[in-house]
């Protein structure tokens, strides 16, 4: 994941290496490159455009300390903006008491909802919870069987009702069953649906209205193209998502969906699926991912250190000036600028 995007961006930064200064001109050039790298990585067009605008503004305004190369400063700016694009994230699940805490999984067909339910249940049982999974995908052939098989693999019970197609009823009864049997978390597996399928989206709304889930997650395939944000937007309009779970994060996708969804919907990615095994789920950390995209954690650290060092030095100089009574108007102006 992200390797290809990282390569492209590294090439862009390499182009800046020889330059002595960040100017409006050479930044413009770099931004065009970054923009096309982002688009090739399936980042949504509007997000890519806005991102580049933000980075450009920061870059032109940025003070390039003379101990640092402009390219390194640029890396740091892009890194911070990437992290901001995807964050902040609080992947904690707000457990309620008395329970059960209800988690609803929604998404397109084939995004990996059922598998993610299994992974989530396993993660929660390892955190000393007693989850119950509810098989509310009554559309896809053998979806109930699939959840039951997963349940038996991880020792988590599955509530099923076969032979009818009322998902609202199944979810309601599942939660009743959980209360009776002391399950503190309920995970609802719903049928995959297209965002534009009014009938099925309506069903999902009804489920959410009937059971009032504590968390509604959109399960999204990391390889999704420009459509990722459309899907997330429509699901968010109808369901009020709490966050996304990005699956197939272990693919070689350049990760446009990961970079686009938060900016467009305001809802962060909270978890990522990173493999076929049922323990392959992780919390999402934007800082780490931004580092991975750039593959330049060392430079980011270096710039941070240098900036800190520079600030300390400046402060010391000022102290000296003040003590000796040489603190002039231009020093004052510099201080004011820094406060901005």
């Amino acid at each position, binding site marked *: 994941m992200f390797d290809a995007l990282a390569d492209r961006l590294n090439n862009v930064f390499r182009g800046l290496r020889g330059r002595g200064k960040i100017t409006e001109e050479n930044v413009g050039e770099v931004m065009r490159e970054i923009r096309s790298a982002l688009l090739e990585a399936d980042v949504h067009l509007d997000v890519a455009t806005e991102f580049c605008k933000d980075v450009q503004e920061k870059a032109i305004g940025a003070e390039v300390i003379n101990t640092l190369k402009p390219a390194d400063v640029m890396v740091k700016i892009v890194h911070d903006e990437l992290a901001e694009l995807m964050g902040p994230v609080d992947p904690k699940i707000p457990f309620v008491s008395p329970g059960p805490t209800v988690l609803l999984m929604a998404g397109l067909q084939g995004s990996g909802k059922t598998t993610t339910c299994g992974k989530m249940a396993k993660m929660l049982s390892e955190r000393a919870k007693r989850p119950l999974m509810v098989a509310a995908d009554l559309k896809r052939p053998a979806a109930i069987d699939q959840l039951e098989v997963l349940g038996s693999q991880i020792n988590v019970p599955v509530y099923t009702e076969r032979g009818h197609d009322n998902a609202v009823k199944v979810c309601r009864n599942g939660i009743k069953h959980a209360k009776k049997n002391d399950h503190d978390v309920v995970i609802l597996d719903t049928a995959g649906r297209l965002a534009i399928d009014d009938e099925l989206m309506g069903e999902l709304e009804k489920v959410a209205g009937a059971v009032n889930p504590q968390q509604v997650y959109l399960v999204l395939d990391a*390889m999704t193209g420009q459509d990722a944000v459309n899907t997330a937007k429509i699901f968010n309009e109808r369901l009020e998502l709490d966050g996304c779970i990005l699956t197939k994060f272990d693919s*070689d996708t350049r990760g446009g969906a990961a970079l686009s969804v938060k900016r467009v919907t305001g809802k962060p990615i909270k978890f990522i699926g990173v493999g076929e095994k049922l323990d392959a789920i992780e919390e999402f950390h934007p800082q780490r991912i931004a580092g991975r995209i750039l593959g330049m954690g060392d430079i980011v650290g270096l710039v941070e250190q240098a900036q800190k060092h520079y600030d300390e030095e400046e402060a010391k100089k000022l102290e000296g000036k003040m003590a000796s009574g040489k603190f002039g108007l231009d020093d004052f102006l510099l201080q004011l600028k820094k406060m901005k």
Partner: protein
Amino acid sequence: MTTQEPSPARKGLFARLRQGLSRSSTALKGGIATIFTHAKLDAAMLDELEDLLITSDIGALTAQTLTARLAKDRFDKEISPQEVRAILSGEIAKILAPIARPLEIDPAHTPYIVLMVGVNGTGKTTTIGKLAQRLKGQGKSVMLAAGDTFRAAAIEQLQIWGTRVGVPVVAGSVGADAAGLAFEAVEKAQSQKMDVLLIDTAGRLQNKAGLMAELEKITRVIRKRDPSGPHAVILVLDATTGQNALSQVEAFKQTADVTGLIMTKLDGTARGGILVALAEKFGLPIHAIGVGEGVDDLQPFDAAAFAEALTGAES
């Protein structure tokens, strides 16, 4: 999916595609209307058009090619949105026309062995069900092989399709060797003189070397029973996939000698523009597209209809 009576199929498909692609085509259609206001075609307009095309997953390179072709004859000349749509639609259809080729079942091979491959969740099992229905409707005897022995309940899912369509399913147990199952299925289809054998496989990400090697093994084992097989290897692609589809085709082509593509889920908001990029880069036939969840919702791929629906051009 062999040749259909062209007119009704085309109409039906066009209506469905229109409906399915309505969001994307409205986006392209509306976008084009905003950019081109009967003024002279200039560089800024071309840049905007390029961006707009990118939002349909067509890829930066193909977007550039298309805008360059538009610019070639029309730069600095007055141009209307309708003209832009028509020219783009025509150019896209030109790229796609040579690869719009239905799956031909060669009767010289009995069974004609079709291997379905793809990443997780693209709709391989569902597509096999629909394909079986279509082939059976053409009077062919069809057998299915539940070669996805990994995903929980994938075997049951295919068995349900088998019952629905009324064709036999060869299945083993969960976790069994998929290559062994494929071998057994070829043997059974041969002895029962089936016309077509459709083999399902587990979804696998193309960057997982171990899983891709397993796919190679399945092909090898099929060849032990029939050295000419598999006769078709179909890569099932999800229309919501972005530029990663290029990497999928590349990897599966290399490992499994993919002979054709089927794109699923074109009835959603996804645009499937990536097909144009794929056509330019690989030129693999597109056999069919999935435009709905019903058993009959697998349609032959029609280049002109697809191009018109994608660009919002009027036919």
